[in-house]
């Protein structure tokens, strides 16, 4: 048995310990957010956060995620109540087929939690591991900028009020 903490909940999973985290999340826990893209850590469709870091869940054995905090797309919000980064992507209509977008959102989320005011160059550098084939990149970049702005709205208002 492997014990796994995902989106704040503990799970005991009866899986081969070398199973990539991706399959444990999808098949054992029914979480659809992380997608199989390459199984090689080259495309980012499977991106989740482990202890706040964006990781390729397709190349991390589930055993190595034990004792860590795993956050998936589902941990950010629901269709009815999407989280701030999800809202920004929806607002910008930053998806075509959408298959890569959960990974994009998770990688962006990891950046914004660490660096709430990324520059455009930082965003591009950070997002470089994730591939999109539909060519939605310009909207994804806009969505991440929007997410940064909306997350920071209260602090900005405070800062301006203090001037």
């Amino acid at each position, binding site marked *: 048995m492997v014990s796994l903490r995902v989106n704040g909940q503990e799970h005991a999973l009866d899986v081969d310990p070398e199973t990539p985290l991706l399959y444990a999340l999808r098949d054992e826990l029914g979480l659809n957010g992380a997608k199989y893209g390459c*199984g090689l850590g080259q495309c980012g469709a499977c991106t989740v956060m482990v202890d706040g870091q964006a990781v390729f869940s397709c190349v991390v054995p589930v055993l190595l995620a034990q004792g860590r905090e795993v956050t998936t797309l589902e941990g950010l919000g629901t269709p009815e109540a999407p989280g701030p980064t999800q809202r920004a992507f929806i607002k910008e*209509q930053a998806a*075509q087929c959408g298959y890569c977008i959960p990974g994009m959102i998770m990688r962006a989320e990891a950046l914004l939690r660490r660096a709430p005011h990324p520059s455009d160059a930082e*965003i591009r550098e950070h997002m*470089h591991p994730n591939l999109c084939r539909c060519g939605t990149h310009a909207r994804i970049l806009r969505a991440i900028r929007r997410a940064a702005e909306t997350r920071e709205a209260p602090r900005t208002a405070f800062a301006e009020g203090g001037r």
Partner: protein
Amino acid sequence: MSAALPRRGLLAGALVLAFALRPAAAQEAGGPVLPGSLKETPELDAWLRIDAAGAVTLFTGKAELGQGVKTALLQIAAEELEVPLAAIALVTADTARTPDEGYTAGSHSMQDSGTAIRHAAAQLRQLLIERAAERLGRPAGALRAERGAVVTPEGTRLGYGDLVGGLDLHRRARPGSPLKPAAAFTVMGRPVPRVDIPAKLTGAPAYVQDLRPEGMVHARVVRPPAPGARLVSLDRRAAEALPGVIAVVRDGDFLAVAAEKEWGAIKAMRLLAAGARWEGGPGLPRQADLFAALRALPTEDTAILDRPAPASAGTGAREMRAAYTRQYQAHGSIGPSCALAQEVDGTMTVWTHTQGVYPLRAALAEMLGRGPERVRCIHAEGSGCYGHNGADDVAADAALVARALPGRPVRLQWMREQEAAWEPLGAAMTTEVRARLGADGRVQDWDYAVRSNTHNARPGKAGDLLAATHLAQPFAPSPPRAIPQPEGGGDRNAIPLYAFPGARVMHHFIPTMPLRVSAMRALGAYMNVFSIESFMDELAAAAGADPVAFRLAHLEDARARAVVTLAAERFGWEPGAALPPGRGRGFGFARYKNLAAYCAVAAEVAVERETGRARPVRVVAAVDAGQVVNPDGLRNQVEGAIIQSTSWTLFESVDFTPDGVTSVDWSTYPILRFKAVPERVEVHLVDRPDTPFLGAGETGQGPTAAAIGNAVAHATGRRMRDLPMTRERIKAAIGV
């Protein structure tokens, strides 16, 4: 030799939006052809149904591929039927429920399905109004439809649910429809948010990959090391001994394994592959000899345009020539192909991201040796496909495993390396062009030839499914076929839209395929537009003319001129403007298929001398897609086309040796990543209210490639005629 096609003639018959408001009685049965897909499926209830509670269900044979078609079709139905968009349930491509609209391809969805739905909804609205008029004893003209009800001037409302009782909707559409004028639109023409996006962005089940029915097993296929290899021996013991393995399925050279868990299936697949011995192989040409090999193959030659040069042409004229090549390129869906299949009581149901549920059903039925009534194909979304990728083939794989495990739902997904090695590719192509430029700076005569394999090997027949060609009793692939003009395949957009006094265009169709190819976004248009528009720049330079002015001087079509002018304006195109060193600008234009959307693209590209790396900095497009249903959806499609075409143009080439494809992952088949994304991508729309929908999903591919090529030439002084324009090639060209 086929007769010359007058280009304008291609527009004939497109009376899609005729506002026929004359009374029904005046319309003759068997009169005008019904619009869009009503031609093939004329019954109103095939498209729209309303139940006694007033719930509306809309049916389409087209599929959501990430292009936003669901939202656009809902907008059309909501607009014409006068019901809130959110109140309409939509059923997409399903052989048991929806019309047969062939493939969701060729930028046809709005022209086919959108047009049918628009007319069906307008006619249904009119029937409901007439029904209310009868019931109320008032003239229909005094009533109007609003939010799912027919309303009197006094405000009495009769809900559609009440009115529909006893109304037989299983009736043929009439030739004329009381369509709303664009000025009255409240839903069409608006940037309605995509209905499918929230689920996709929050992890709700949205893809075929996300289906997990009770009792589902995971399957993986083991492919030969290369096309043509035969399985000569198999040791299946290690795979079968793995805990959780349910079955190894072998039929001839088709080999697959099913297991309780996905990771177990992958491990078993690897063990099975290790136990398999294959012999023989493809004997592909060396990649370095690809174009010589293609030129050596026999061709079927068709003159698709033959307009003799006027006698005056050639006097004082200067002749110029160029030749262009394009390597094989891949669809490269981010999510490898996947299908779910289940055999119950002799009926095979397949959930599939195919672009054509009906043709796939026919092919599967033939492969399984049964009637089509015992196969059902239901579209479930996959990762974006951009044409004929592995979707149909994986459906066949899943069905073969499901046949061996009756009752159990079988989910089979390809691995990345399988997708890359086995998807049907975009064809390698060559083009040659020769033109005579008069002393007046105008093209007098134009000769163009394109040489290509097929651009459509889609199923319909079992032999078009990869697995069916591997069975012990194999099915032969369909004979490769060209797609005739006016749409064309390899010769799509080979006929220039420019008004050249003399022009001839030859299509050299190559039936023999060294590598398996099929439809990829824009088909031959990508290469033909790149070639034509590159050469237009070479001619403009020779004439000492500005590239935009040179194009306008040869364009008569007013809508073509409008997008060229708009793109140039928004880009800030000034003739002769100087750019900083290492920067260049370029222009490209085409009307997709010469009958769908118009698109002009201007690009500014930065070329780094030391590395040869080219990056579009700013791309500005102008598009005329006729009546626009969803402007944001259209922009999204064209932005995507620009970025995807940039990736094809600068990075992408399927690599192979005589033993098979070697570019099998994202390190060996690199595509555009974030650092190469242009700083700005702008798409400006020319709305044409009350004109027919013009398909726009593929219109950006060719003009973008041309704009980039022209900008690289402008930046470096070197003309790149071979796609892709990789940094190695650019570096070699500029001699660093």
